[in-house]
């Protein structure tokens, strides 16, 4: 039985490593899956959080609510950090 996890839909090794590092640091489970985007990834996540690469950027999406990225940026480690903290219900550290 696998614990609930955030889903990452991405095949770029550098992005995958950076996002995975953020999740490992926060102690939050992450699964890498083939998906078409953050919305699909989020929908397949029991935590309702998905991450995907779009147009060279990293997008964090939610399974419900408007179909737009909840957060988007260029720093995969940072977006991973936000996603992991969101899953862990810790402050994201945004001003």
């Amino acid at each position: 039985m696998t614990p609930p996890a955030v889903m990452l839909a991405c095949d770029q090794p550098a992005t995958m490593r950076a996002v995975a590092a953020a999740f490992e640091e926060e102690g939050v489970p992450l699964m890498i899956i083939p998906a078409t985007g953050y919305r699909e990834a989020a929908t397949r996540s029991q935590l309702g959080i998905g991450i995907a690469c779009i147009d060279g950027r990293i997008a964090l999406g939610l399974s419900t609510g408007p179909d737009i990225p909840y957060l988007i940026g260029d720093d995969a480690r940072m977006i991973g950090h936000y996603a992991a903290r969101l899953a862990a219900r810790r402050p994201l550290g945004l001003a």
Partner: protein
Amino acid sequence: MLVAGVDVGNATTEVALARLVPGREPEHLSVTRGPTTGGKGTAESAQGVLDLIERASRRLGEYPVRILLADLHPVQTDLQELAANETQDLGGVGIARPVSATPSGVGAAAGQLVDLADLVGDVLPHSVIPIVPVIDFDDAAAQINAARERGWQIVAIIVTGDDGVLIGNRVDRSLPIVDEVHDAATLPRGAWAAVEVAAQGATVVQLADPLRLAVLLSLDPARARGARNAARALVGHRAGIAVRREATGGGSARSAARQATLHSGAVVSIDVDSPPPAIGDVATIEDLDLPLLDAFWTRLPAAEDSTALALQLMQRRAVGLAVLAKRGDRALEEALAVQTTAEVIVVAAETAAAVAGASTTPGAGHAPIVIDIGGGTVDLHVVLDGETRAVAAAGAGVLVDHLCGALLGIDALRAERAKQLPSVHVETPFILRHEDGSRTFLSTPAPPQTIAHLCVTERRGGSLDPLTASLAPEVWSRLRRTAKREVIATNLRRAIDAIGGLPRGELVVLVGGCAEDAEVVDEVTLALADLDLAIARGDVLGRHGPRAAVAVGLVLLHARGA
């Protein structure tokens, strides 16, 4: 004749426009409200008055011929954190501070601080704590593992970046590692240091105990007592660092509180552990050259829910002080007279005007007891058996703002909102937890910066103002209510004592800005429960709630006297 009743408060100015016709009841036309500009009663406060009159007059197409004022006495309110000026000797401990949101490992250890780069050199014969700069976590872990294999006794690690767990997973999951130590470069290399990480949900034990801290840092028994200030700084935190320095001591230079001299000649300290005197007892206050009518002080509310928070609040030694002074000039009246064609008249004392305004509350009749809770003072006005007694106690809404601001670490404007509005904890983008534990489910996600934060929330718009204070909404709610009780209810008790008590079973009408706050009304009701009073919120003219009692009252008193 169009007149403007004007109440210049310590926080808010209110203007009531009315038309007076001899032999008839005043025709009340409007009430407008805005922030007081400058200090209450100063020449600067005239601008706020004139802006409000201008705004109201424009709607009517007519300017008042008389501006009616109350006899004003301003209040100065301030909050001082006495500990901010104190020097606490850490008694042989140079640095003692909490760190890390996500540390790794569990336990406490002590060793000499070394740079990560030093680990390639000769092995030291004692335990060390390497400091990892901002480098890739795999590289850092590889260097530490190699050093351990060469015989370095690495007992803990301090990491500059947010890589503590990543390094711990690649080195030793049990090793205490603290991270996000952004100023790690400034830690004194070569010094003896201790690091502790508590298990999840727990707080440091060894570093928070002065004797154990002293043992970890190899302080001699004579200096162990001095480590108490350092240990106290780490109480309640999950992880911490302490670094030894070569010094003796451990005492505290307690910063001196201001002194108040009473009319009796006694001198008391304005400090957290000295209760405020009775109304009118203070003759002078150090460094304050004002003719005093009253002075009141209070400390930050005690946090009963958390020992760590209670200790943190106590250590700040914060004292809120409100001083009611007799005005020595007529600056406001003179400024208004110069800047307007209207005749400026001082009609009555504020308390008398408040009674007149409060009496327009439907069903109140002539209110025998009126409590006006404004920004600066709690005013009590009692008319019984033809005898009038009135008293003003320094310290009300603005002092509560100061306490709330200090508790939450925010400015006065945000603190005023935090005082008035409910708070929530944003659990997820779609779930808000309220102060009573109930939850709201959102259809659109809360902003990312609010996640897992205590937020002040607008009742209607639902906008969220995230606060940095790490308090649960129920804890903040209790602190907020306590602040209101300790200022407003305490001051009301002082006022009642000053006039010799209140008769049981009478009607009490609450007016003033603070009376809009249901929590204040609750606290007043609780404070007066033993007197079995009928406590009602004013509704001035049946449409303005508890606001504008003084402004409307000035119009009524002037009409009766005209």
